[in-house]
C-alpha cells in the first residue's frame, strides 16, 4: 500500500507543530528557573508514559494498570545493572528497556491466551504492580528499599532540573509520537482500528487480534521502560515512590483519558494541562487531592471522549471540508 508523500506530510504536521512549541517553550516561558524546568520535565516524562499507555490501551483496549511498574522495571533494571557491574549507562538503559518490553509482552501474551477482558487485564496488571512494589521494598540489598537508590552516570547538563534534561525528554517524546503515528499509518494501525471497533469482526476479517495486541503491548512497554530508565539517570535518585501506582498509573490513566484515548496528541495535552494544574493547586490549596478528585469527576461528566476528540468534532462542524487524514471510522457500516 503506497502512502502519498502529501498524506504523510499532513500526518506528521501535528508532531512538527508540537515539537516546535515544546522546543521554544523554555526561552519564552520558564527560562532558567530549575523549579519550573523540573515541572516541565515531569510533564514530558508523563506525556512519554502516556504515549506508551495510549498505544496499549487506546489502540488495542488492553487496560495496563502497571505503567509505574513497567517504568520501574526499566528504571531499577538499568540502575541496578550499572550499579552492580561496570557497564556504561547506555547498556543499562538498553537492558532496562528490553526487560520492560519483555514483561509487557508477557503480560499481554497471558491476557490474550486467557482471553481476559478489559477489567480482568486491568486486575492482573494491577496485581503485578502491587507485587512489583513489594519486590522493590523487599530486595533491600539491590534496591535500597524505601530509602531509595542513588543513580549515577548521567552528564550533569542532562539532569532533570536543567534545560538539557528538558530537551532530552522532549526528544524522547517526539520520537515516541513519530513511532505512534508511523504505526497508525501502517497496516498495523489499520489492524488496531479494526480490533478496537469490533474485535470479533476484526478476527473474522482476518486480523490476527492476538498478535497485534502483543505487538502493541511490547512496543508500548518498551516506551514506558525507556522513559523510566532515562528518568532514573536524569533524576539521579529513584525510590519505590518514583514508580508507585498512585503516583504514576492513576495520573496516566486520568490524563490520557482527559486528552483523548487513542489520539496522537491526547497524552501530550493531558500531561501538560495536569502539570499546570498541579503546580497551581500546590501553590494555592491545602488539599489538592480533593480538588484533583473534583476535577476528574467534572471532566469525565463533561467531555467524556477527551479534549482532542471534542476539538476535532468542533473543527469538523465548522470546517466541513474533507480532511486529508484517513477517517478513523471503518467503511462499510
Amino acid at each position: 500500500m503506497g502512502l502519498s508523500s502529501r498524506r504523510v506530510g499532513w500526518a506528521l504536521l501535528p508532531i512538527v507543530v508540537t515539537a516546535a512549541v515544546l522546543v521554544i517553550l523554555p526561552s519564552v516561558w520558564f527560562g532558567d528557573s530549575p523549579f519550573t524546568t523540573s515541572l516541565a520535565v515531569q510533564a514530558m516524562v508523563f506525556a512519554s508514559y502516556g504515549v506508551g499507555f495510549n498505544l496499549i490501551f487506546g489502540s488495542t483496549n488492553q487496560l495496563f494498570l502497571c505503567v509505574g511498574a513497567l517504568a520501574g522495571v526499566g528504571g531499577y533494571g538499568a540502575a541496578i545493572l550499572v550499579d552492580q557491574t561496570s557497564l556504561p549507562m547506555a547498556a543499562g538503559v538498553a537492558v532496562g528497556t528490553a526487560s520492560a518490553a519483555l514483561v509487557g509482552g508477557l503480560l499481554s501474551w497471558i491476557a490474550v491466551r486467557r482471553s481476559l477482558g478489559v477489567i480482568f487485564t486491568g486486575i492482573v496488571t494491577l496485581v503485578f504492580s502491587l507485587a512489583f512494589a513489594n519486590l522493590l521494598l523487599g530486595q533491600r540489598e539491590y534496591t535500597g528499599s524505601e530509602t531509595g537508590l542513588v543513580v549515577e552516570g548521567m552528564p550533569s547538563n542532562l539532569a532533570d532540573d536543567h534545560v538539557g534534561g528538558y530537551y532530552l525528554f522532549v526528544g524522547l517524546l517526539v520520537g515516541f509520537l513519530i513511532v505512534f503515528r508511523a504505526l497508525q499509518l501502517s497496516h498495523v494501525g489499520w489492524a488496531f482500528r479494526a480490533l478496537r471497533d469490533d474485535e470479533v469482526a476484526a478476527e473474522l476479517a482476518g486480523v490476527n487480534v492476538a498478535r497485534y495486541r502483543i505487538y502493541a503491548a511490547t512496543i508500548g512497554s518498551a516506551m514506558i521502560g525507556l522513559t523510566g530508565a532515562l528518568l532514573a539517570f536524569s533524576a539521579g535518585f529513584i525510590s519505590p515512590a518514583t514508580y508507585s501506582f498512585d503516583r504514576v498509573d492513576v495520573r496516566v490513566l486520568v490524563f490520557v483519558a482527559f486528552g483523548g484515548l487513542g489520539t496522537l496528541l491526547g497524552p501530550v495535552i493531558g500531561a501538560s494541562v495536569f502539570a499546570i494544574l498541579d503546580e497551581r493547586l500546590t501553590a494555592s490549596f491545602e488539599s489538592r487531592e480533593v480538588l484533583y478528585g473534583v476535577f476528574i469527576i467534572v471532566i469525565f461528566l463533561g467531555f467524556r471522549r477527551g479534549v482532542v476528540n471534542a476539538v476535532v468534532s468542533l473543527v469538523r462542524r465548522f470546517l466541513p471540508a474533507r480532511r486529508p487524514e484517513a477517517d478513523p471510522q471503518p467503511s462499510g457500516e
Partner: protein
Amino acid sequence: MTAVVLDGIVLGLAFGLLGVGMTLVYGLGGVLNLAYGQIVVLAAIVASIVMDDGRATLLAAVLGVLAAAGVGVLLDLTLMRPVYRERGEERTLLGLLLTLGAAFVIGGVLTWRYPDGALYINITGDPVSVLGVPMTRGSIWASVIALAVAALLLLFFGATTFGRGVRSVIQDEVGARLVGINPSFVRTVIFALSGALAGIVAISTAMVGPLTVNAGFELTTFALIVTVVGGLGSVAGAFLAGVLLGVVQSLSAHYIGQYITTIILLGAAALTILIRPRGLLGR
C-alpha cells in the same frame, strides 16, 4: 498449625466481608466502585468522632454504618446515573474513572480534616479458647459479625422476593425490566447495602486492630482482589475467596516470612484469575 489456620480464617472472613460489598455493586451492572475503601474509612472516622464524644460504642457503630450507607446512596443518585446510561465497556470505564474521582474527594477530605484519624474498638475480656487456641475477643466478634452478614445476605438473596428481584437484575437487566422490576430502584438499594457493608467492615476491622485514615487504597485493592477471585457478583464466592486468601496469607507469613507473603497472596490471586477467569463461584 491450628493457630495459624485459625488466624487465617479470622483474617479471611474479614477479607470476605470486605469483598462482598464490592462484588454486589459489580454484579449489578459492571461498575467497580473504586471509592469502596474510602467509604470504609469514612465510616471509621464517623464512628471514631462519635466515640470521642463520649457516646456508646454501639451508637457510634450504627452511625458509622448509616453514614457509609448514605454515601453509597448519594453516589448512586449522582455519579452513577450517567454511568448507567452507558453500555458495556464504556460503562465500565466511566464507572472506574468517576468512582476514582470520588475516592480522591472522600479520601482527600478525610486525610485533610482528620490527618490522625483512626478507629479502634477495644473489646476487653480474656482470650477465648477455640480448639485449644486462645483467640482475642475482638477477632471472635469480628468473625461472628462476618459470618452473620454472610448468612443474612445468602438468606436475603435466596429466600426473599426482593432478593430474587436483585438476582434477576444481575442475570438479565432487560429481562428483569420486562417482568416489572425497576433496575434503577434495585441499584439504589444495593448501593445503600454496599455502603452499609463498608461500614460494617470498618467496625469489625477496628475490633481487631486500629483502622487509620489512609487505609482506603489498600482496602479497595484487597476488596478488588477478593471480588475477582471469588467471582464477580457472587456473595458466597467472596467469602470463600476471602477465607482461602486469608489462610494462604497466614500460612505463608508463618512459614515463609512476612515480606514474601504479599507477593504469594498476589500470586495466588493472579493464578486464580488465570486458571478460572470467572472466579471460584462465578457464573
